[in-house]
């Protein structure tokens, strides 16, 4: 007997399917709310090689849903922490840790080592980048995403050339301020738990041929009603327009700009600009009770709801920089202020106070 007996005695699964899992090389993008259950179940099921890519650090507000981490892990890199945990659990699988964010520069080298990609990221720029690279490199993609009490799961690019990809469903990315993420709207931890577990199930089915995987289909799940809606996906002639023509072209694509996030700068650039323009203003657009607070730098605190009303206060500022918890509300504030002050230097700080380069760390 071995640790996989209960699954290979399943009628129709067998040792052959188990062998396919052992041979499989699966990359999990993001060890967050979706990535945690994906990693737990793929490693338990005996997927032979699992890559974990995540440049983010564990923060307190992650702990309701990112169940691989605990209070002792705050501030640690998620990929490293997850890899350490899984290696201690199982000796018979290979865990590769990539403690970086996936970018246009590293994606080709990272993807080339895997034959299935699982997207557990939390933002549109990454999701479109991952989709486009999967199309160009011919990698199947297990897609999963959540919004408030709902989730989506699909296997994209699962039939080689002419498969359905994410841009067939949504050719153009929504702007970051059009659709908020979990940090902005809240989420019960069980929802990404369920959606991530569905992604793991689909990955196992796809890899072994067991059952009917969601290839070219998208499942919608509602946590509050337990209603499921599965739709058959179709090819969209507009999908090709957005995908770079080659990996070389992809490397020079700015996915932040593609996704309307081009008004964002990082913290280093923000402080450089504030030094250059001493008359500039730094504004925290979060509510007063949100933490952590920025320390050691002068700033104003004006919640997003009041930005429109108070805009006259910044009439004479030569530079306005805005930040929030993760960079979504501050982008909305940029759009509001740009209407009042066209041409003024107004930027959102990408990733907000929780960004990896934030001065709170």
């Amino acid at each position, binding site marked *: 007997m071995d640790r996989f007996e209960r699954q290979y005695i399943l009628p129709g699964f067998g040792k052959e399917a188990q062998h396919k899992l052992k041979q499989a090389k699966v990359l999990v993008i993001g060890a967050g709310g979706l990535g945690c259950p994906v990693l737990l179940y793929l490693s338990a099921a005996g997927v032979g090689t699992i890559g974990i890519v995540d440049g983010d650090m564990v923060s307190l507000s992650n702990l309701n849903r990112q169940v691989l981490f605990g209070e002792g892990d705050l501030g640690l890199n998620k990929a490293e922490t997850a890899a350490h945990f899984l290696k201690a659990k199982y000796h018979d699988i290979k865990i590769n840790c990539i403690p970086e964010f996936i970018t246009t520069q590293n994606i080709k080298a990272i993807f080339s080592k895997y034959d299935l990609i699982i997207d557990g990221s939390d933002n*549109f720029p990454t999701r479109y980048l991952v989709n486009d690279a999967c199309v160009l490199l011919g990698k199947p993609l297990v897609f999963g995403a959540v919004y408030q009490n709902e989730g989506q799961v699909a296997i994209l690019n699962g039939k080689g050339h002419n498969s359905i990809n994410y841009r067939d469903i949504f050719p153009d990315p929504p702007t970051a301020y059009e*659709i908020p993420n979990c940090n902005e709207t809240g989420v019960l931890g069980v929802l990404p738990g369920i959606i991530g577990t569905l992604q793991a199930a689909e990955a196992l089915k796809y890899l072994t041929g067991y059952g009917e995987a969601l290839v070219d289909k998208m499942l919608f799940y509602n946590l509050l009603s337990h209603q499921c809606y599965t739709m058959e996906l179709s090819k969209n002639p507009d999908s090709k327009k957005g995908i770079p023509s080659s990996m070389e072209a992809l490397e020079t694509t700015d996915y932040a700009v593609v996704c309307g996030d081009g008004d964002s700068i990082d913290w280093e650039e923000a402080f450089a600009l504030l030094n250059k323009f001493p008359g500039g203003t730094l504004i925290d657009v979060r509510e007063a009770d949100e933490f952590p607070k920025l320390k050691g730098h002068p700033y104003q605190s004006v919640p997003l709801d009041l930005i429109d009303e108070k805009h006259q206060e910044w009439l004479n500022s030569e530079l306005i920089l805005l930040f929030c918890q993760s960079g979504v509300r501050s982008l909305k504030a940029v759009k509001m202020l740009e209407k009042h002050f066209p041409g003024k230097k107004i930027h959102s700080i990408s990733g907000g106070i929780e960004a990896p380069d934030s001065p709170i760390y």
Partner: protein
Amino acid sequence: MTLTSIHIIAFGMIAEKIKTKELVLEYMPDTEVLLGYLYQQYPDLQHTKFSLAINKKMAVGKTAIPVGAEVALLPPFSGG
């Protein structure tokens, strides 16, 4: 619901913007007419990207709507 109506189901932020998860509308012949109606009734939708499915099959471009069909309004999610 009758056979001469369209049953609309909405997901995610689309349901928030039209303030309901389900709607029954008078029959409309195709997705262009339907979208025109929705954009007029719910101007917020004009600034929101979403996909359509008719009887659980994704519809691309102008597509005929069969009598009595169920049409889903499906937005992208990004959270994880």
